């Protein structure tokens, strides 16, 4: 029951946090910025509209938004939030989960290709390339966690006897993971410096260019899916940051939400003070995150720390 409640809260609250990013960016630009609830307004606006489909597209195009939204939602089902057990969990759920998210991406890419627009094809190629690289990092993190914790389930990672947090005895290594997961968060969710969600030029887009042809409720689903995904990664990092003793209870929830908000602020700050990379430097950036985690993995595998 508690699990369902936290899940529902998460699904409802996820669109709130991107508003924080916008606020931070507006602050840095010296503007007032849109209201915090802007994303809800946008979603409501989109849902009221109708969808337009190009005559050259097939059913694949229509499936894209639905599948990507569904997979993002599933990710939250498996993920423990604020010390509450997730709705579903089993040994090995992390692997399933990352592949489910892979399915979502696969269908988004398919839908983009289905439009037969050269721009969208280009975006799809970039998305596929960069997320392949990012996957290496993610699985290196899983290997590292397996070494540290001996399990393959989010629940065990964050809620077992021997939780993985920065404050555990050998937790300092997790600094590597935190940094590289943050880099992965920026990559996977198309944020600066990898991609610019607010750019206006199709040539330089990655994610945005893929969904150019979606409209109305379809676009709303895609956006909502993106919020969930961002929420998932941010929650992942905040679990690493929060000491185990704060898990559970109202206090735990408050700490969790606070940390989460801090991460969103960090994203906003990063977006404000960095420029996006040239496209050919993005692989280097992702590879850096991979190298960081591998550093940590080497150190633990050697049993030295």
């Amino acid at each position, binding site marked *: 029951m508690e699990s369902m409640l936290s899940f529902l809260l998460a699904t409802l609250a996820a669109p709130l946090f991107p508003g924080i990013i916008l606020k931070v960016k507006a602050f840095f630009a010296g503007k007032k910025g849109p209201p915090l609830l802007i994303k809800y307004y946008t979603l409501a606006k989109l849902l009221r509209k109708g969808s337009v489909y190009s005559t050259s597209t097939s059913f694949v195009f229509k499936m894209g938004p639905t599948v990507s939204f569904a997979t993002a939602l599933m990710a939250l089902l498996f993920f423990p939030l604020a010390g509450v057990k997730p709705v579903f969990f089993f040994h090995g759920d992390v692997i399933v989960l990352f592949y489910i998210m892979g399915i979502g991406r696969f269908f988004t890419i398919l839908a983009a290709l289905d439009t037969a627009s050269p721009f969208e094809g280009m975006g799809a190629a970039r998305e596929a390339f960069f997320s392949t690289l990012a996957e290496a990092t993610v699985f290196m993190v899983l290997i590292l966690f397996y070494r540290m914790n001996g399990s393959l389930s989010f629940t065990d990672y964050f809620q077992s006897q021997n939780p993985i947090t920065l404050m555990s005895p050998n937790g300092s290594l997790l*600094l590597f993971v935190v940094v590289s997961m943050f880099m992965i968060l920026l990559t996977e969710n198309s944020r600066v410096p990898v991609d610019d969600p607010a750019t206006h030029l199709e040539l330089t887009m990655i994610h945005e260019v893929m969904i150019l042809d979606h409209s109305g409720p379809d676009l709303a689903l895609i956006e909502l899916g993106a919020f969930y995904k961002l929420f998932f990664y941010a929650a992942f990092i905040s679990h690493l940051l929060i000491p185990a003793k704060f898990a559970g209870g109202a206090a735990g929830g408050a700490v969790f939400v606070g940390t989460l908000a801090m991460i969103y602020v960090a994203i906003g700050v990063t977006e404000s003070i960095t420029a996006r990379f040239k496209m050919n430097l993005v*692989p280097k950036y992702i*590879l*850096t995150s991979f190298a960081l985690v591998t*550093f940590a993995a*080497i150190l633990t595998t050697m049993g*030295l*720390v």
Partner: protein
Amino acid sequence: MTHITDAVLVIILLSVLLSLGSNRLKALVEIMALQGIMVSLVPLLLEYKAEVHHGGIIFFQIMILIKGVLIPWLLYMAVQRIAIKREVEPIIGYHASLLAGLVVIFVSTIVTQKLHLTLAAGRELLLITAITTLAAGLFLMMSRRKAITQVIGYLMLENGIYLTGTALTKQSHTLYVVEFGVLLDLLVGVMIMGIILHNIKDAFDDVDTTFLGSLKD
């Protein structure tokens, strides 16, 4: 409770890796400043239980000042004044550099394990960090074209050696006067390198070391 020392060491390792992957000179200098401060914190953290003399405390403050502020500032000025192109210009690409970094840490872990018996307890990560920093510094010197990156590589090498020193030896042997001398040498060295850099820029309109190849047999 996480050991703060470990966290500091991990940050040093982070800075090493980021410096291998960084493509902007300014970012590189900023990373070096961070590394300098962290490196100067390490001995203080290792010794916090033992009696630290007043002289020692003052020494560490000066060290943070020199390694974390003064030298990076000098480098920063050099970058401002010298480099027209603010890119790092690697001879060995970023990806290969990052992989080289991985190899370096792997090797240093193995080396440390071999020396396991002869080390004071709890200093393994310190030694790994030291060797990695040292080797990565050397690598950076060899694999980047700009003269200023060679200076940065030299600094990193020096940081690594300093860490090795703190990892391996008791502070009591190396009196602070001596460490201060080492630090002073380093500072003057960087200043002289800076002056030469400036002259290289004047003479060749660039700080690319490929221009420095006319003397040979």
